[in-house]
């Protein structure tokens, strides 16, 4: 991976090391718990200590470490892959079968198998080997409980992989406050344990049902391959299954597997989401504005989070922003930072705008700019409150009419007929379900990446507010109008999504996470505008703003903007 993923890879490695430590603790506790003997505490403690420092335990820990590395690698691969843009259900379905998914599902099944056998050997279970000496016959027999457990391990690995990475992938959420790591782990332990035991019930039930119907097939295959006899009662009979008690063991080991996986995820989250301080100017390390420039990638998240935290708490780094460069006296730090921040906010506004106006992302401005109307998007016919007939898009259609006249040939007619036919087929219910464009995915995809935008807006607003007292050279004052107008622009685009009655069908979100992100983004933008307006309330009329922006700011000044 290139330099941009450097921080991510480093943190992933650190989290793997923490995870190995945590897994070792879990393994030690398991060893102690299994041999619990309250009546003979001394022998219990001594035998536990013997086991912990024996060679078996170290091999187990090494293997657990390898499994951790492997799981971290998969986690990293899925995290770095950008959020895919699924626009039809069919393409969503097809993407499930890509090569990466298939390979990783096999590997995860194997890792489930290894983890289960590790835990069952730590717990000194009798069901570790497939073969045993037959009692009634001369030869070797199949120990079906071991087969049951081992296959259960593979099933568990596959189930977890499908759940966590394919069907409902969870994005990395940064916590709004970051406590000390030990404190966070302490808080998470209780929920890890209870979730682990509770969530293993459903997959165990599914597995028992699966084994009841198809358990005999792998059993026959294995006994043929190894040349084993079957002498015990087969386990694909409900009475035998419950009677042998193996389902308790299965549930226990699958819970352990889930606990270890959840612990791994928790440790990853804790280490990956740690806020990082970027220097404002530096020749060797990654500076803040360069980190912010990497937008939706991991560095972008860390950079924008650092921008917000710095704007609230760090006077030293704020002073660095407000300084002028040595020869020349240019406010380079502020200019670089402002450029990246405005880019993030403006790109997001443009995307919102294109979703609102149902156009492809605009790169060239089609209509000439009216002086003073830099805010209102050109896709609407309504500028202000009056419909402006002079700028109707029909004007351009009239202009292009001449070009189309000479192309009426047979081929174009056939093409048109074909298109009409395809459109009609697409309207049919079943086909449109599979191939029709999902209405809210574009908006959902956009909102999932709104977190850096929120942090950027707040960071800019708080730096601007702090500049009233801390900025000696007035570096920020000259750019106040553009900061305010960018924020107002974003807010107006967001308002179009929420105005009741005017919301077109494609903006109705079904995903509760996306809805919450939308309201979080809206309240964050309003907070930023309020901060600037309230701090500069005495001088607001001296700031040169466009008349549209001035009108938009009025409700904030009188504190009537909901």
């Amino acid at each position, binding site marked *: 991976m290139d330099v941009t993923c450097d921080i991510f890879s480093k943190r992933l490695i650190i989290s793997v090391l923490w995870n190995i430590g945590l897994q070792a603790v879990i393994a030690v506790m398991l060893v102690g718990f299994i041999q619990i003997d309250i009546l003979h505490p001394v022998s219990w403690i001594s035998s536990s200590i013997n086991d912990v420092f024996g060679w078996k335990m170290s091999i187990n820990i090494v293997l657990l470490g390898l499994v951790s590395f492997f799981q971290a690698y998969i986690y990293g691969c899925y995290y770095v892959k950008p959020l895919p843009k699924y626009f039809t259900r069919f393409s969503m379905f097809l993407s499930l079968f890509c090569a990466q998914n298939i390979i990783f599902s096999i590997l995860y099944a194997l890792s489930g198998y290894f983890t289960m056998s590790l835990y069952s050997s730590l717990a000194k279970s009798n069901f570790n080997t497939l073969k045993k000496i037959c009692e009634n016959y001369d030869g070797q027999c199949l120990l079906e409980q071991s087969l049951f457990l081992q296959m259960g391990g593979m099933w568990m690995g596959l189930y977890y992989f499908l759940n966590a990475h394919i069907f409902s992938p969870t994005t990395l959420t940064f916590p709004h406050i970051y406590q000390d790591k030990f404190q966070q782990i302490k808080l998470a332990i209780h929920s890890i344990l209870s979730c682990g035991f509770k969530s293993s019930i459903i997959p165990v039930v599914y597995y028992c049902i699966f084994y009841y119907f198809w358990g005999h097939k792998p059993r026959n295959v294995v006994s043929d391959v190894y040349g084993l006899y079957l002498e015990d009662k087969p386990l694909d009979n409900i009475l035998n299954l419950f009677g042998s008690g193996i389902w308790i063991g299965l549930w226990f080991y699958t819970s352990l597997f889930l606990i270890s996986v959840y612990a791994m995820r928790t440790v990853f989250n804790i280490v990956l989401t740690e806020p990082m301080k970027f220097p404002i100017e530096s020749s060797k390390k990654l500076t803040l504005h360069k980190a912010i420039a990497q937008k939706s990638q991991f560095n972008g998240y860390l950079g924008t989070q650092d921008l917000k935290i710095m704007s609230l708490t760090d006077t030293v780094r704020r002073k660095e922003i407000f300084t002028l460069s040595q020869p020349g006296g240019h406010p380079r730090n502020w200019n670089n930072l402002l450029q990246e921040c405005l880019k993030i906010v403006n790109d997001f506004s443009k995307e919102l705008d294109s979703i609102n106006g149902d156009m492809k992302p605009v790169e060239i401005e089609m209509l000439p700019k009216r002086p003073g109307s830099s805010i209102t998007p050109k896709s609407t016919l309504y500028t202000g409150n009056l419909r402006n007939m002079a700028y109707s898009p029909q004007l351009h259609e009239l202009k292009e009419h001449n070009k189309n006249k000479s192309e009426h040939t047979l081929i174009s007619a056939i093409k048109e007929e074909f298109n009409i036919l395809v459109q009609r087929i697409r309207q049919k219910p079943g086909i449109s379900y599979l191939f029709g464009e999902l209405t809210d995915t574009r908006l959902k995809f956009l909102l999932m990446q709104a977190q850096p935008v929120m942090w950027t807006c707040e960071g800019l607003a708080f730096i601007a507010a702090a500049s009233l007292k801390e900025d000696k050279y007035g570096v920020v004052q000259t750019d106040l109008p553009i900061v305010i107008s960018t924020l107002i622009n974003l807010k107006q685009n967001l308002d179009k999504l929420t105005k009741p009655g005017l919301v077109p069908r494609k903006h109705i979100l079904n995903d509760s996470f996306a809805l919450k992100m939308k309201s*979080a983004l809206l309240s964050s933008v309003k907070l930023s505008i309020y*901060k600037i307006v309230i701090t500069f309330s005495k001088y607001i009329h001296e700031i040169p703003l466009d008349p549209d922006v001035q009108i938009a700011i009025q409700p904030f000044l009188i*504190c009537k903007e*909901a």
Partner: protein
Amino acid sequence: MKYIVAAMPDMTKKHPIINVTRDLHHHRTSDENISMYIDVEDNLLKKITSVWYKQGFLEALSVAADPSVNRESPTLAVTASYILKVANILTAFRYFLQPHLKDIGPKIVANYSRTRNWGQVPVKCLAWHPHTTKIAVATVDDNVRVYCSEVTFVSTLKCKAQGHVSSLNWRPLSASELAVGCEQGVIVWTVDPNLMFTKPSSSNAVLLKKNGHSPVTDVSWSPNGDLLISCSGADTSMLVWDTAMETAIPLRRVAGGGNVFARWSFDASKIFTATSSIIFRIWDTKTWTPERWCARGHRVVAACWGPDNILLFAAKGEPMVYALTTTSLLSGSQTTKATPALDVTKVELSSGEPVGGPILDMCWDPTGRYMAMLFEESHLVAVFCTTYIMMQLKIDPCCFVTGVEDEIPCTMAFQQNFNDGACLTIAWSSGRVQHFPIIYSESY
């Protein structure tokens, strides 16, 4: 530079007039009203299930065990009484381990509330908006009424989940978000200031609750407007909410019992939290780690931050105000110490009125010039002038505020956006809400 302090009613001409009388109250069935109803003979099973539904399993058991109520099935009564005995032993053991859990919901709030007689007074708590002249008042019927200065329409915020309101706090840097701490959790209302004639419905409210975190005894927003802290007297963790994403991160420290209230400093760098025991903590918001302090006798009952991060606090039953100041030493490190700042032992005025004694509540105005105090054993509100010059805090007496006839002050708050001085809003036991302006003017 001396200042004349005067109460000029013209300054508060535009302030909302609030008088919470009994006919404003909306009827709400509470435990006290049950005696107004006549008993109806139901069969035993119906009685037990209705008590189980309303008041819980243990109460249903006690109804079943009561021989005067349960006349039909003596075996059920005997079994229920045995189960009750076991349950009582278990709960006694649990309260031995965690003494702060002893009371139930409203009792916990009444025990820790800084409003005098919280359960019965007309106004339970009030809160001014930080940027505009808007005040939210929680009345005894658990409705929150929002009064604005220019508009005569009063928004009433009520919803089923809003019971036993303990605290109110407006969100800084917004016009319309109000956090209400009630028994089930925290309700965040969005009150659109432009909708003058519609009543906010429960679709404008978001209920934030978490297991074990009830009743909520205090809510406070960060001065930066991004985080909300909720404290519950029965929970050793303080929750830091991100209200838009509806997620909470607990700040848990086990020693000391439940958190009663939290106060943010003006620059949002420190949070003061008082627990139900003598321990109180000052949290640093950069690293979210606390500094643990112990009060001398009883728990801290009131605290307020002032300019330059000075903290004034008072312990229950003690007529003394302490100041906690952080000074930077020459070596570069910082030291914090608590010194007694004001002695308010009870004295009798020439008119015969007692004033002083144990402190009930304190608040400091946003400019740091005036501090008001409520006492447990006195019916006067004492206002002091505070000055902080050359790292020295000076607290001088300013005036007393007394009510009309037999009125007792219940709760108070300073207006946050009063530019001419300070305006203290006092809610009296008769339901009258008084705005007491203190005008600051220079004179020689």
